[in-house]
């Protein structure tokens, strides 16, 4: 099946945060008690109960008359080469047939590796001694087993609720074509740094951003990568471990068989 994607157009977003609410509503996530920090941005961070949040940034300055208020969506980017899937030891994180990185909480053991290896720092897990049986949590593009909107013919909850059309769901390649046209429009319209964020990052993300300025202004990392430690661990250290245990195990078996045969035959003489 052709890959699907979510396209976020930052130039259309009014930061109403309807997506945040719809996400909580569909995924049965409770609201969080927070305190006023002098910003509309709330809650302060992603959490096991908040899989999507809008970030608010003030850039430029009033003196230069270039003050701007930028909004960014912060949630799983659904990488095609996802570090979380690579390090997940139980198969709880997996690529679903549409290219999204889904999460089956029933299989999650709560190790938290996904939290520590994600280049976008998206997954969250409860920490603390009192937290005994914990689960990782993150956006699954509404493909969580048992709560799968896509499988039932709907679009993700955040897309469904977006009033301005800043969020779109559809075929990844079609969205990319449309997004590139929009980027060209923006460039012609006095935004030379306009760009499409995510198309070729970490294997190609399944959440794409139309930005009218450099990604770093939006607080987005410019060069996300699967950490070298994840590759070294999974592709080098672990196979070496299997090999070491196998070779040593076989060697010991051989040793004991030979030693037994020789020592017992000596005793018989």
């Amino acid at each position, binding site marked *: 099946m052709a890959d699907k994607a979510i396209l976020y157009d930052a130039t259309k977003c009014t930061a109403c945060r309807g997506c945040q609410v719809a996400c909580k509503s569909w995924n049965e996530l409770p609201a969080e008690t927070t305190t006023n920090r002098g910003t509309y941005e709330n809650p302060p961070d992603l959490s096991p109960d908040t899989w999507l949040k809008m970030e608010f940034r003030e850039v430029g300055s009033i003196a230069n008359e270039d003050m701007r208020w930028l909004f960014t969506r912060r949630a799983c980017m659904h990488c095609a080469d996802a570090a979380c899937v690579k390090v997940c*030891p139980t198969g709880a994180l997996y690529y679903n047939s549409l290219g999204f990185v889904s999460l089956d909480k029933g299989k999650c*053991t709560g190790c938290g590796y996904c939290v520590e290896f994600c280049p976008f720092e998206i997954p969250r897990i409860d920490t603390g001694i009192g937290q005994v049986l914990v689960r990782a949590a993150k956006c699954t593009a509404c493909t969580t087993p048992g709560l799968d909107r896509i499988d039932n013919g709907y679009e993700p909850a955040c897309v469904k609720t977006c009033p301005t059309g800043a969020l779109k769901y559809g075929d990844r390649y079609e969205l990319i074509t449309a997004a590139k046209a929009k980027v060209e429009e923006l460039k012609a319209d006095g935004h030379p740094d306009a760009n499409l964020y995510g198309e070729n990052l970490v294997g190609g993300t399944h959440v794409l951003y139309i930005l009218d300025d450099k990604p770093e202004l939006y607080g987005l990392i410019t060069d996300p990568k699967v*950490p070298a430690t994840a590759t070294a661990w999974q592709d080098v250290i672990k196979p070496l471990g299997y090999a070491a245990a196998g070779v040593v195990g076989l060697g010991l078996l051989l040793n004991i068989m030979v030693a037994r045969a020789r020592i017992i035959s000596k005793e018989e003489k």
Partner: protein
Amino acid sequence: MQDVERFRKRAIFQHWWIVACSLLLGLTGLFLFLSWVSPAAWWGWSRLVHRIAAVGFVGIPVIYFILNPKSTLEWLKEAFTWNKEDLGWLQAAPSYYFGGPEEDMPPQDRSNTGQKLWMLVVVITSVVFVITGFIMWFFQGSIPQGAYQAMVLLHDIAFIAGGTMLLVHIALAAFHPRMSEAMRSMTTGKATVDYVKTHHGKWYERIAAEK
């Protein structure tokens, strides 16, 4: 036949206590290491068992050290004392363990070179396990991703090194025909004079002289 005391009761208790904790830790860790047994880790119960066993793994040796500081330090000193004679063991070991002539093995001390090697592996991997495990348990979210990743990798490397050497330890101590009284020493604390003379000649001479 006359017996010699190899291990005290409390040392034997500590040994088997650590065996129990290590097996629990190793098995629950293996769930995350081998994909085909990973369903055993679903729901996270193994994570809880791993942590309880970790407390036991650290706790009893700490209590043992507080109650027996002198013998613990002696044991550590033994593990870290290496000299030219150990080279003799290394040269003789391949033939010896494959059933070659017993006389070719130079006389060994209370612990032979192989046993000391295992003691070193236990000490070093335990230190790595405990430090990295402690950080992963209590500092998740409060240290940078890169530092945490290093802890995960070191924990895994210690598992591979310690686990592989554990296979050697189990095979030699429990199944090797030449180590015929190893299991008896670690259960009853005693070994026959004959066994001690042939396997730990240097040590036997010393304790015989002390008597």
